[in-house]
């Protein structure tokens, strides 16, 4: 069960720069984050900006496999109960078999799944399988998602709704856009689920602004992945100082 309330959700790509450091990073993240979002690397991450694209390539180059990602989550469960959400493109899941994937994810301790390129229209079988295994679902909504569709996205989601804050790909931006604020207001009026906002969030002040606008959770990804890109497996110290900055407005 994922409860979002002034929550910090932190994203990193599993296996970046290698799978052994992922567990270390997760332990560091878990000191500050309320939810950990872990990306399964993919050869063609079309919704991601440069920073996360490169993280995907590093993770694949180090030989990261889906079973390694499950194993990391399983190991993490020895230390922490905080919710883990897997983020993936659809093909690795489809190739493995949706049912097998969801079952394995569940037994390794994953709480919910986000599939970037699986909109509700294509999700019928997936939804049935997630219901069967009691796997949480998170669907995305965007600034150009209309009211009717937002309602459907909300009812397909069982963990929370992920709001894409801008017209673009993942990656740090200087400012929170008007678009993000108005989407949060709109979504809060429609959704029964909690809403988390992501894409372009990189600073403590961004987190504060989004929470004040009504978001239940805020997702930070590229800003953390950038630190891993720079410092590699020794990035924990630098990650901690960034996490402190992000967490501060939520305390």
């Amino acid at each position, binding site marked *: 069960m994922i409860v979002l309330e002034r929550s910090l959700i932190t994203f990193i790509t599993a296996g970046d720069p290698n799978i052994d450091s992922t567990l270390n990073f997760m332990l560091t993240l878990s000191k500050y984050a309320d939810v950990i979002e872990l990306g399964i690397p993919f050869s*063609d991450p079309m919704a991601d900006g440069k920073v996360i694209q490169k993280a995907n390539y590093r993770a694949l180059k180090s030989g990261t496999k889906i079973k390694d990602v499950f194993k990391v989550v399983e190991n993490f469960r020895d230390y922490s109960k905080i919710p883990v959400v897997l983020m993936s493109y659809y093909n*690795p899941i489809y190739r493995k078999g949706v049912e097998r994937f969801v079952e394995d994810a569940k037994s390794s301790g994953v709480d919910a799944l986000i599939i970037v390129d699986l909109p509700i229209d294509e999700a019928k079988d997936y939804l049935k399988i997630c219901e069967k295994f009691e796997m949480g679902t998170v669907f995305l909504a965007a600034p150009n998602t209309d009211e009717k569709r937002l309602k459907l996205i909300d009812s397909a989601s069982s963990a929370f709704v992920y709001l894409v804050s801008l017209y673009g790909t993942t990656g740090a931006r200087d400012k929170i856009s008007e678009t993000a604020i108005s989407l949060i207001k709109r979504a809060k009026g429609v959704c029964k689920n909690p809403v988390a906002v992501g894409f372009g969030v990189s600073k403590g002040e961004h987190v504060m602004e989004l929470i004040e606008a009504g978001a239940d959770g805020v997702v930070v990804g590229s800003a953390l992945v950038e630190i891993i890109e720079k410092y590699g497996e020794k990035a924990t110290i630098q990650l901690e100082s960034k996490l402190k900055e992000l967490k501060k407005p939520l305390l």
Partner: protein
Amino acid sequence: MLKLLRWLCGDLMKFGEFGGRYVPELLIPPLEELENAYNEIKDDESFIEKLNYYLEKYAGRPTPLYFAENLSKKIGGAKIYLKREDLLHGGAHKINNTIGQALLAKYMGKSRLIAETGAGQHGVATAIAGALFGMKTDIYMGSEDVERQKMNVFRMKLLGADVIAVDSGSKTLKDAINEALRDWVSSFEYTHYLIGSCVGPHPYPTIVRDFQSVIGREVKEQIVEMEGDLPDCIIACVGGGSNAIGIFHPFIEEDVRLIGVEAAGKGIESGKHSASLNAGEKGVLHGMLSYFLQNEEGQILSTHSIAAGLDYPGVGPEHAYLKDTKKAEYVAVTDDEALKAFVELSKSEGILPALESAHAIAYAIKIANEMERDQIIVVNLSGRGDKDLQIVMEALK
């Protein structure tokens, strides 16, 4: 939940299980906008009139159906006819689609075109349409391809387009598509993404097929006029599959053997090929469910073909459907066989085929002598070979 599932049952137009709309949520509204606009104008008389005007006066339609008598005699089997798409403006069938989509983009009020390109043929055809209709045009091209296809890069620039080198992933066509999609999520308000093959999320495979079907419609009329009958067999090369679906489509319900020829590269067993229907697995990429070259983890593999236009790890969803329902058959031809066919057609008919089309020629040569002399093969000669001279020269050394 039940209500939701019921709503989801209203499936999008698919080809069996293939196709669909596997895209990030941001792209759902622009795809719906595109689908609605296309449905509004596809049967509109003034749109069709305008499209036909440019296809005829500007691009050079109809293209001839030519009886390759010398080649047929030499092989000593079926009569081989060539559908001369190589004679179109720009040198390939690509312009059928770019003119159609550019007019559609104008109708939607878009001021900018973006496109992906591998070898550069679709990029050039898009740049031509951009120049003709006064639209800003940006072409995404893998940085390796930019390096390999300098002439086409220069050609696109002369035509007024900007060429953006893509440095991510394998730095080839599939990455150019990823990058064009990344552009489109932030620019769709004023930009049309002009996809060059019958791939991508719904409605693209249908739109591209419709614009390319002019090839098959003409063949049907021409062959009946020349031979009094439909052909026994139609052969076309398949990368994404736009020229093939264009010539196949009007014949799908007819008693005609349809053969798509994929690139076997250095041989299927070598792993260096682009034959996704022959050697791929079902998967989801670029918004569609189809066959893809991928490993067991669902990671997309890099591909190889001497013909850059066939060098794509996936294939249009309608071809996946035609394969599974056995309405068409899909074979593969190696680099070497395609090269031989390139030389053969040049010598016997005085026609330099594109290396892509040479794959279809190679397979026609293979099966023609097993057929009767009164049987008819139509090969889609989808492009001309001038663009490939450098590659052929190197390969023949």
